[in-house]
Each structure stands twice: as structure tokens, then as C-alpha cells.
């Protein structure tokens, strides 16, 4: 679909998850799971509520401890990396949390500059100009930068959070349910924005989502998580062809009928 796809056979996995196991007390959430995310693709990650989609994302990000397995991001072994190496990788990814996670005591401008101040030593003027540039990129007016997160609407919050995720020009962007809480028009616009930015900046996007629309329009590849394992991955047609009951229900259910029709025509 969209984006710069590397030539076949030359796929570079920027995230490599092998044999990962995560659990809470005696409940196993991820069970020896494997997943690859390739450079320049938009990967949509789906699964039932509570299936552990966010758990996997948080484990990759290092927010949750894993029991077994290895995680490699941008060629770095994240499990055994020391703090310095970890920080070097963290500089190269950006995360859009589900509710934005904008710092409520900082203005939009300060929110966007926060990671920049931490990692780079840039003059104020350049940082201010870049805030305007990033806001422009996510489709917001420069006036927005003096607002506090509490003054932003849902859609604007998501856009600002995306701008913050992009503030260091990362190579990988993690999006946790980016379109949840947005109306269909807003969600569609956000999908388009993600696709455009992916093209413009050559991003790799890891998107946890429930939105069939997003899966259909922007995702290059979809991975399905059931019972702690990735049971299927591939494009929309692969998903529609699957015989796994949960997937049949998910992709062939009433709510997705529209897409099948669209896919057939």
C-alpha cells in the first residue's frame, strides 16, 4: 500500500521479538511470542480486549519486565543493554500513548521541546522554529503551542502527542490505539496523517489498533494476537482468508461487512 517498502528479500527487521514470555503472577499474557517489524512498514497489531496487545508494546518499550525471550530494536539487544545503550535507542523511537500522555503542567510548546532539551543542546530560536514546523506537520496551527493540554480537544491532543513522539525525528513510532475516541472523520484524517508522515519521514510504524478502517487504509501488514501468540500476519487479504474463528468473527463480523464489499469491488 503506502510507504517506501524495501525491495523483496532485503527486508530489515527493526524490531525483532523472539520467544517472549510475559505474565502477571500466575497468569501468562504473552506465551513464547515471536514478531518482526520491518523498516518502513506500517504494522497494525490487533487482538481482543485484554489479549495483551498493549502488554507486548510496553514490554518492547521496557515498561514491563519479561520472563523469557529476547527483544532487539534497531539492532540493539534491549534485554542486556546498559543504560547508555538503551538511551541511545530510546532517542530513536517515539511513542504516542493512548490518551496522549502530554505533560499537563507544560504548554504544547514545552511538551514538544521536552525531549529535545533532554537529548540535544540546541539554541532556543531553532527549537521554537522546529515546534512550529512539527505542529505544521501534524496539521495544527502555530497558535496551539501556547495552550495547555487541558485546553485541547481529543483530536488535537492526539495530534500534539504525535508531534511530541516525532520531536526527535525517530525511526520507529509506536501508536497505541491512535484513533480511539475520535469520530470517524477525525480518525480518517489521523490515519491519513500517519500515512503521510510515514512517507515524508520514512518512519516505521507499530500501531496497536481496533479500528478496521485504519487496518484497511494505512496498514501494510497486520499481525493478530490470540492466546499470547501471534497467530497470523500478512495483508488484509490474508486476514480475510483466515479460518481461525476469532479472526473470522473479527474481519467478517457485521461491523466489517463494509470492508469486504469494498475489498471485492
Amino acid at each position, binding site marked *: 500500500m503506502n510507504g517506501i517498502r524495501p525491495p523483496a528479500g532485503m527486508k530489515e527487521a527493526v524490531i525483532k521479538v523472539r520467544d517472549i514470555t510475559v505474565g502477571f503472577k500466575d497468569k501468562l499474557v504473552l506465551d513464547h511470542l515471536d514478531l518482526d517489524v520491518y523498516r518502513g512498514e506500517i504494522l497494525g497489531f490487533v487482538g481482543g480486549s485484554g489479549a495483551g496487545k498493549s502488554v507486548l508494546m510496553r514490554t518492547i518499550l521496557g515498561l514491563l519486565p519479561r520472563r523469557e525471550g529476547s527483544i532487539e530494536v534497531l539492532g540493539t539487544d534491549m534485554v542486556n543493554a546498559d543504560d547508555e545503550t538503551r538511551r541511545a535507542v530510546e532517542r530513536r523511537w517515539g511513542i504516542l500513548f493512548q490518551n496522549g500522555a502530554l505533560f499537563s503542567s507544560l504548554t504544547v510548546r514545552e511538551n514538544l521541546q521536552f525531549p529535545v532539551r533532554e537529548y540535544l543542546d*540546541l539554541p532556543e530560536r531553532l527549537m521554537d522554529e522546529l515546534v512550529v*514546523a512539527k505542529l*505544521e506537520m501534524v496539521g495544527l496551527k502555530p*497558535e496551539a503551542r501556547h495552550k495547555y493540554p487541558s485546553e485541547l480537544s481529543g483530536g488535537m491532543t492526539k495530534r500534539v502527542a504525535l508531534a511530541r513522539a*516525532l520531536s526527535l525525528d525517530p525511526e520507529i513510532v509506536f501508536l497505541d490505539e491512535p484513533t480511539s475516541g475520535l469520530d470517524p472523520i477525525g480518525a480518517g484524517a489521523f490515519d491519513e496523517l500517519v500515512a503521510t508522515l510515514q512517507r515524508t519521514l520514512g518512519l516505521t510504524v507499530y500501531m496497536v489498533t481496533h479500528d478496521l478502517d485504519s487496518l484497511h487504509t494505512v496498514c501494510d501488514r497486520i499481525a493478530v494476537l490470540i492466546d499470547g501468540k501471534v497467530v497470523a500476519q500478512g495483508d488484509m487479504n490474508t486476514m480475510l482468508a483466515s479460518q481461525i474463528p476469532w479472526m473470522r468473527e473479527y474481519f467478517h463480523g457485521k461491523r466489517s461487512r463494509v470492508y469486504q464489499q469494498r475489498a471485492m469491488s
Partner: protein
Amino acid sequence: MLLEGRAEGDRLVLTAGGAWIALHAQELETMIDSQMAGEGTFRRVEIDMGRIERLDTFGAWLLERLVRGWKSRGAETNVYRLSSVYQPLMDEVRHVNPEAADQADEEYAHERALGSIGETIATVGYTVKANVNMLGATIAAFLRVLRRPRDFRITSMVHNIDNAGWRAVPIILLITFLIGAIIAQQGIFHFRRFGAEAYVVDMVGILVLREIGVLIVAIMVAGRSGSAITAELGSMKMREEVDALRTMGFDPVEVLVLPRILALVIALPILTFIGSMSALYGGGLVAWLYGGIDPDAFLQRLKDAITLDHFKVGMIKAPFMALIIGIISCVAGFEVKGSSESLGLQTTESVVESIFLVIVLDGLFAIFFASIGM
């Protein structure tokens, strides 16, 4: 080398190379600025981007700035051999216009400076209005409930009396006991110089019954129960529970506010009584152990020193203070907006405001009682 320049007559040829990314942004900016600071005037500027390895937003913006800089000096500027991969990024950056944003900013700055003063004044006015409004609404709800006593939420009120009254007893006992003891100790220590230790009993008695007892209790209740009420109502407001009530045809003031305020109005005088007794007990104990005034003498002296008026003055104030605490904490609770940040803000505000007003009210009562000779 990130950027190299070479002048050829009225033509400047700039050759860019390496990674124009965030990591090198500072270095790049210095180079570009020094490039622009140079004296020479050129008719044409050519920027060769052929040897760029990587370009991100930072690099793209700096390139755009360089181009704009030369263009504004009237030089014909040309960027060539830039990889087509980066073309969308350059197109994006071309729309950015920080100067326009800065101008809008400056106008904004004046407005903001004046705005904050006006806003503060308006807020004070608004708060006064909201509190008076709430007082009126509560009285109206109370009168309605008097006509239809069945509608009164007695369970809620009892629950709130339990929370604000019964559960506060231990801490109130402890604090007022200590305050009574401290007043007595200080009194004995200083009065001893004039040989007037016996007057400590007068001082403790009058001070505790008229002022300290009710004031300490009211401040404790404001901190303990006022904040709880604000937090409760605030979180209900956040989760739209208050709106849900309203749509079901209930009056939030009647359902939520009235039981809480009545509970405070009932609990605070009782706590004041308990607190005053505890303070007298503490004072008496210290007078005995530290001042050598035995309990019989203390009680006899106390009987002579105080009249019923002193006790009444303290007790009359209690329900009014309860009313103020209740009104302010309920108003603050309903003021909570969507964020949990505003919940914290309103809770702090509720406590500060009610303590302040409790003390102001105490002062007004002091004037009032003095003028009627009580």
C-alpha cells in the same frame, strides 16, 4: 564536512554532505549562520545536496532557512541533486512560517499580561457569586425538603455525620487536648512572674470556650471533611455522575449538597463541645502537674471565671462555620473540570478558602458579640 562554500565571481556554490540530522543540528546551525554572516553579495547561490547521507526535519528546516536567508538578500537560490526521497519533507517544511507565528505571539503577550489581572479579579467575583448562589440553592432545597420530608436523604446525611463527625472524634480530642495543655503551660510560665498563676484558669477557660475550641475544630474539619467533600463531588462531576443525576430529574443540590452541609452543621457543634471539653481537660491537667493547681481548685476557679455566655459564644459560632465550610467545599467540588489536575487544584482551593473564611467569620463574630456585650 557538513557544508562548504566557494565563491565564483557573483556565484556562491555551497556543497553539503554527511548527515543533516538532529544530532548535528547545532553544528549545522552555526555553519549556516556564519555562512550568512559573510559580507559578499552574490547574484546566484547554488546548494549542492548530492552528497547528503541522511536528512531529517531538523536538517530540512535548516536548509530551508539557508535558502530563505539568501532569497531575502536578493540572490537567486537553487537547491539541486537532493534525493527525491527527501522531497516530501522539503515540501512540508516550505509551508512553515515561524515569523508570522512570532508576530501573533507578541500581540498575544500583551493580552496575556493584562488578561491574567482581569481574570483574577473576575475569578474572585465569580467565586463570591457561586458561593452565594450555592447558599441560596441549599436553603431553597432545605425548604423544599421541609415540605416533603420523605425526599430527604437521611441515610446519606447519617453516613456523612459518621464520616465528618464520629470518625473525627479521636483526632479532635488529641489536638484540642494538646492545645489546651500548651495554652495552660505558657500561661503558667509567664503569669508566674507576677505571681498570678491562678489567672491561667480564667485564660484557658475563656479562650478555649470562646475562640480556640471552635476555631481549631473548624479548621480541622475544613482540612479533613471539606477537602473530602470537594474530592468526592469533584470526582462525581468528572465522571458525569452529577449530569446523570440531573437528567434523571434529581436536583444535585438536594441529593448531594444538602445532606453533606446538614451533616456538617450537626457534627461541628458536637465536635466543638467535645473539643472544648478536651482542651479544658488538657489545661487542667497541666495546671495541676506543672502549675500545682489541684483539680478541685481548678474547677472552683473555672466556675467563677466563666459564665454561660462564654460557652454560648463558642457554640453559636459552630454551625455558621460548618455552613461556610460546607458551601465552599461543595462549590469547589462542582467547579472541577475534566482533568484530575483540576480536582487537585479545587481541593486545595476549597481548604484554603474555607480556613480563611472561617477565621474572617470568627473576627466578625468577635465584633458582634463585643457590641452586644456577650
